[in-house]
């Protein structure tokens, strides 16, 4: 089947050269596909990625795990790529590929030597236009996903903290963030083939996707190829976004979870935080850094080093489109009581709420975030994924260059305010994550 294609470009955004800036070109195709191009000819490498605005939070109740399941299913083959051939085609052209799923989006990418750019575009257009979704593929991937769950979560120490399956059910009541990305096996087992097909038709359309091409490319030629392969893909209905407001947590939630793969317990304080687009989410990232990033961070220095009550301290902000979670926690050293760890963590939080961080700590944060910013743009594959994420989830592709300005503009006073606003005792989960008792 051959087709002649006419197309028109809307050039949204072109940033111009500036030292260390990630230049990019962004436009939409007529079918709604958002396209971002980033040219960097220093190494003969190109990444082609497609991000779809569908994640675990878009799943129907009783059908958890669908979004992640697609991440597997859509490697099974297309009308022109036989089942089992996807990976061979990529490998035979010297490329590598992968995909990942979050609560908010699903991302597929291939990285090739730059002479295989057209191949990468063809493959991604095949996946968007007409993947084969059949019983054999569903059955096989169903087993593989079960193994993935076992190896990542069920057989892995602290797996249900790392993947939030032991946390999110407490943090969200109405919002689908309460479910895990990998879903439940019962739901996947119960799903019919037609449901998978319907899910694809609903979410896997060009108007719900962003195509990113980064690396050793020629921009006009690349635009032409993109038009050739993607313009003819029909657009779908507009996707209705999840719009659920959670009531604030008013009373402290106390919970205990057990893990048979661990011997040292963990205690964690978990707070619900705003959307990652929110300025306050950036402030929380800085708070996280103050508390646990590096050996001179407050919690590490005090709990691991000085008081010797913790084997390890941890903090991570899980940034998401609608709400996030922020977790701080510690593993006790020896027989230290978990309540002792909580008391000390509380004292450190209280300090943030009552005193400004020092000028030197503030400067340290600035240096750390600048270092992070420089390093985040160090590989073509990384730049591609960041561009798509900023476009799709933040609505501002140029954040790849501007995000550092947000951090630079955050003040010490803001850090104190946000610590007061979000890190209140009555708004949190106190989780004791314990070794499974054995008889």
């Amino acid at each position: 089947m051959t087709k002649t294609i006419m197309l028109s470009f809307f050039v949204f955004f072109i940033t111009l050269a500036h030292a260390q800036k990630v230049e990019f070109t962004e436009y939409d195709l007529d079918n709604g596909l958002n396209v971002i191009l980033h040219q960097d000819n220093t190494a003969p490498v190109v990444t082609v990625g497609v991000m779809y605005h569908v994640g675990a939070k878009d799943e129907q109740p009783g059908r958890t795990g669908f979004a992640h399941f697609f991440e597997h299913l859509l490697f099974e083959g297309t009308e022109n790529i036989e089942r089992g051939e996807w990976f061979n085609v990529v490998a035979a052209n010297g490329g590598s590929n992968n995909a990942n799923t979050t609560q908010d989006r699903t991302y597929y990418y291939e990285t090739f030597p730059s002479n295989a750019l057209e191949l990468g575009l063809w493959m991604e257009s095949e996946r968007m236009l007409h993947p084969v979704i059949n019983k054999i593929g569903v059955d096989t991937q169903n087993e593989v996903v079960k193994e993935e769950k076992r190896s990542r979560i069920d057989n892995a120490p602290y797996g249900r903290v790392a993947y939030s399956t032991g946390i999110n059910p407490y943090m969200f009541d109405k919002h689908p963030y309460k479910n895990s990305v990998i879903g439940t096996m019962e739901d996947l087992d119960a799903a019919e083939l037609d449901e998978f097909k319907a899910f694809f038709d609903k979410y896997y359309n060009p108007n719900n996707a962003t195509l990113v091409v980064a690396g050793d490319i020629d921009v006009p030629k690349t635009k032409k190829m993109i038009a050739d392969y993607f313009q003819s893909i029909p657009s779908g209905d507009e996707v209705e976004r999840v719009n659920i407001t959670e009531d604030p947590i008013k009373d402290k939630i106390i919970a205990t979870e057990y893990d048979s793969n661990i011997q040292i317990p963990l205690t964690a304080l978990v707070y619900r935080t705003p959307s990652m687009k929110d300025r306050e989410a950036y402030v929380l990232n800085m708070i996280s850094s103050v508390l646990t990033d590096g050996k001179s961070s407050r919690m590490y220095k005090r709990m691991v080093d000085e008081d010797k009550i913790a084997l390890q301290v941890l903090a991570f902000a899980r940034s998401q489109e609608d709400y996030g979670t922020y977790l701080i926690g510690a593993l006790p050293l020896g027989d230290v009581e978990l309540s002792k760890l909580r008391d000390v963590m509380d004292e450190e939080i209280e300090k943030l709420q009552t005193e400004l961080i020092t000028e030197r700590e503030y400067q340290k944060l600035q240096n750390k975030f600048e270092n992070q910013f420089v390093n985040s743009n160090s590989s073509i594959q990384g730049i591609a994924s960041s561009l798509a994420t900023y476009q799709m989830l933040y609505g501002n592709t140029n954040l790849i260059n501007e995000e550092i300005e947000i951090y630079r503009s955050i003040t010490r006073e803001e850090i104190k305010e946000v610590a007061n606003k979000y890190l209140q005792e009555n708004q949190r989960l106190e989780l004791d994550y314990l070794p499974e008792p054995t008889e």
Partner: protein
Amino acid sequence: MKKIFALLIVCLVSTSITAQIDRSQMPKPGPAPTVNIGEPETFSLSNGLKVLVVENDKLPRVSASLIIDNKPFTEKKPGTQAMVASLLGTGTEKTGKDEFNEEIDFLGANISFGSESASASSLSKFFPRVMELMAEGALMPKFTEEEFESEKNKLMEGLKSSQKDVGTIANRLSSTLSYGSNHPYGQYVSVESVEGIVLEDVKNVYKNYFVPENAYLVIVGDITKKEAKKIVKKTFGDWKKATPPSTSIPAVKPAQYTQIDFVDMPNAVQSEIIVQNTVDLKTADPDYFPVLVMNQILGGSFGSYLNMNLREDKGYTYGARSNVGASRYASRFVASVGVRNAVTDSAVVEIFKEVDRIRNEEVDAGKLEDTKKKFAGSFVMRLEQPSTVASYALNIEIENLSKDFYETYLEKINAVTQEDIKRVANKYLKTDQMQVVIAGKGSEVVENLEKIEYKGKTIPVLYFNKETKKVEKPEFKKELPEGVTVTSVYDSYIKAIGGNDVVSKVDNMMMKGNASVQGMSLSFTRKLTKDGKMLELVQMNGNTLSKQVFDGEKGFTAAQGQKMDYTEQQVKDAKIMSGLFTEQKVSDSAELTGIESINGEDAYVIKLTDNVREFYSVDTGLKLATETTAEQMGQKMTSKLMYGDYTDKNGVMVPMMLSQDLGPQTIDIKIEEVKFNDGVTASDFE
């Protein structure tokens, strides 16, 4: 001196770009990109430190890594090197720990130390200071007793915490079994070995091995050679020249025969399987490239034999991979996979199948070509990172490679033939000396593992504990579900054979059956009464071979003209055992001990006495077996009577097949006749 090698990857036809596309045709790649492998700038210091500098100003950052390429050595107290690593950076002769760490953090830099290495990275504007800090931490450490105790404590806690991690335990056992427990690669760090370490041990290892003789410093990033030289002289110029002690590494012994090495992890939901054998292969060997390609096809990528079989075809796993290491000292072939418990044995079989396939079948020519292209692509992509140039130059130096090793890398890959693949597969995948290391849930996987056959023989299963010591086969108990008791097991048994009402109407019972033993036809008669009397008769052609009688109080065994009264213990056992449907009441000594498998069927185990255990199907409730242990001439003999082929007889389910195992023999008794309340008289029990 800077040389640039131009390198053409794989020459392929370019397609002209037209407005018309035919998406049923896979696009052909354009002309291969030209790749330049640069060469780093190098210089040495008089203390022996060799420095490599790769300038790349794409991003305003610089990184440095110090690598001391000493020969590995066996630790007297395993864990000492780990302690050196964790104590470096905890303060120096000049700077206290807090101040030291605070400054690194303040600069937004990363500095880390190993027992024979150090690395640092930062924004270029802070790099001169960061190098000073790295050198200070590495060369002027202050090992204090306080930090020593604290780090030791943390190391031991960390070791404890991984005791339930299936992957950790599998890796530990596999290294020890490959290389031997006194080999640097086979030693493992245990809580006990760390406990014995004192501060002096740490200081000695540091003093002996953290020396510049075999050291390389690699600097990559936004920096010129001139700047680098100035900084390195200032920071590492005073490092005192010294040579590490000479040590010898124990020889590696291959496994004597192919075996399964099992370690029980009762918490496992997946088995970690590591199939391995040691190999003698160095990067400089001519076989290096054929082995690289062979492994890529067997298990080096997603599309490999192993992954396509175990993941994509069978859905056993999230991923199966293999690797063949190359080393100056010792290395091994490893195929590893994590699979759900139920398919552990099948996964082992499939791994062997794929290993045999690459050893015996010629690899498809197209597949070989595609694999070569993958190497070409990866080679190009690695060059995206400026550090690659440095690591190539370093490898040439330390691995004794030819100067043009990387320039001709792809030529050598392309020269590999189908015959080469088969040849190196046979040479390096030693299917007669393979260890199949498995960490998994014994109660669910071992029974089938013991049945695996390979090359017409059952693979022996050896058992190990988590500390890599060989042990007797452990008893694998399955966990009992909540709420199950002797009473509930008995209730479901009575229900399964017909229910209390039906069973209660039976006062006595007679069963007659036949069996063939060594060509002779034997007949069996068994009579039981409600009040605990029992008769068992074995006859041949109407002649009695043996007779057992118990009248409720006393009993005897008669055979070959001899009559022996029951011992006290036998009477005790018989009182509990004899009678009809004894499960209607629970005896005081009955105890539910667990779940075990009878011919693959899970059964609740009820221990009646020290010598008698009975097995009831978890699934159907029916009694599957009675196991008795008797002492004969000081030896314990265990035999099982198995009940099968349950059939409805007047409303009661009766086993019509009794199988008695006697040592290696099994006697199958087929029941021909069953009578209730008929054919039993008091004289039967005299």
